[in-house]
């Protein structure tokens, strides 16, 4: 489906969803699960975009469709001016919600996996891997295997494995879910630092209001399933922000705005699943 307004993509739009829906077909040929949409969404080049929504509203589905991992049922996805097909385009890096570390490789080899896969030369692999190990606080565990690490550390291995590829668009699906509140704040600051350094576009899926309010330039608030984007909120933070903005009065205003949008949806999500 090609909608006419897709023809002109402004230069600062990095990725775009137009009229995207996703229905998971039922095994028995029944009506299936309408998980997402229709959603229209434009990620601006270099922005930090958070997606927030109640559990099961289709956030991970949104990531799948945007990255080319699963095809939209209707609508069109564009990344860097080209339609996204059935493969993940070069330049997109993904951190999944579930643990995706490779248990048979050391932490170091996990992080280097994509680089080796891409045929990057050895010295460069070492340089980037060393940097990522230090950046993610994994230096002492370089030779450990993921089953020997905590869930939060495994997730950091996955983040590092994605970041060393230097993606231009980074999609993170609740990457800090397994971390305690303090580590989350610190990881959030690190993510901001990285985002500033690499000038990458970031889409962060989260269900933590404060995380969304603190980290992002814009926040897309989703409804209960089938997920629609109810509102997009501009935070107006400067590029060199960090977690200390939590004490800014504007931070409180944004979180309470988010909560007032999400409260009803979250009740719907819980009530809906309790009934069915």
């Amino acid at each position: 489906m090609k909608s006419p307004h897709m023809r002109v993509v402004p230069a600062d739009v990095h990725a775009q969803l137009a009229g995207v829906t996703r229905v998971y077909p039922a095994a028995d040929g029944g009506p299936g699960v309408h998980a997402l949409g229709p959603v229209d969404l434009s990620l601006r080049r270099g922005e930090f975009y958070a997606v927030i929504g109640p559990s099961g509203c289709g956030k991970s589905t949104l990531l799948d469709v945007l990255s080319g991992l699963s095809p939209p049922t209707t609508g069109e996805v564009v990344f860097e001016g080209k339609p996204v097909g059935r493969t993940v385009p070069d330049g997109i890096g993904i951190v999944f919600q579930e643990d995706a570390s490779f248990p048979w490789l050391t932490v170091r080899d996990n992080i280097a996996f994509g680089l080796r896969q891409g045929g990057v030369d050895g010295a460069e692999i070492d340089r980037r891997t060393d940097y990522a190990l230090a950046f993610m606080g994994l230096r002492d565990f370089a030779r450990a295997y993921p089953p020997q690490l905590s869930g939060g550390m495994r997730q950091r291995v996955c983040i590092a494995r994605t970041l060393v590829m230097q993606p231009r668009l980074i999609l993170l699906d609740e990457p800090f879910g397994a971390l305690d509140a303090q580590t989350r704040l610190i990881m959030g600051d690190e993510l901001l630092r990285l985002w500033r350094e690499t000038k990458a576009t970031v889409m962060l899926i989260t269900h933590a209001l404060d995380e969304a309010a603190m980290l992002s330039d814009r926040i897309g608030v989703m409804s209960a399933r089938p997920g629609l984007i109810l509102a997009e909120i501009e935070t107006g933070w400067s590029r060199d922000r960090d977690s200390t903005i939590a004490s800014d009065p504007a931070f409180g205003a944004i979180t309470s705005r988010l909560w007032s949008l999400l409260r009803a949806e979250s009740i719907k999500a819980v009530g809906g699943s309790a009934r069915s």
Partner: protein
Amino acid sequence: MTRLGWIRFGIVGGAIVLLELMCRFGVIGRRVLIPPSDMAVQLWNLLRSGRINNDLSETLLNVAASIALAVAVGFAVGSVIHALPRVRRAIEPFLASYYALPFFAFYPVFIVLFGIGRMPIIVIGFLFGVVAMVIATFNGFDRIPRALVRTARAYRMGPVETALKIKLPYAAPFLFTGVKLAVAYSFIGVIAAEFILASSGLGYSIAYAFNNFDNRTMYALMLLVIVLVTVVNALLHVGEARLMRRRGL
């Protein structure tokens, strides 16, 4: 050694000593069984004389070839069928009842198809082992987390590359069960096939000794087969334990 290890050691050692005593004191006749110590001495002499070198290496080659084929083909077929859920559902009952087939009843067919010599023996060893490997591949692949396969897609890996670089290493500890079974079944298949189809090899030599009332050689060769299988299994066990420990399983 652990307590349990000592108990097992005691059971095996005790059985050997008991057998030895029963043979020595005539409870078991000489024409039925020779004492285990005689078997060991006889085996030692056989090995030193070099008379069985050819048969031994022939059997080992046959077994190695059938194991290699069973593991490689079993893994390849298993990974392809695993990717086709419908085909898998259709053939799973056949696989489950596969080992109910009395292969050796068909040995004339093998001779007609593959002639005599090495081929039919390797084929029988292979047929014995391959399905165990297919089933183990299914089991291993069933456990692969969805996120790992999606990671492979995020790195734009094709199906073959994903099977070799993601699925194979993830499933390795579970595939190991298949390898162990393939090894055991290949040994059974090869040695049994040598009994009826071959004119050399350990299985043939055992049958030959039996037909010529050469009890001492026959039992020495049986001991050799037992020792071989035990050593191979011990090595596999060590390899498996290492794999599992590293994976925290």
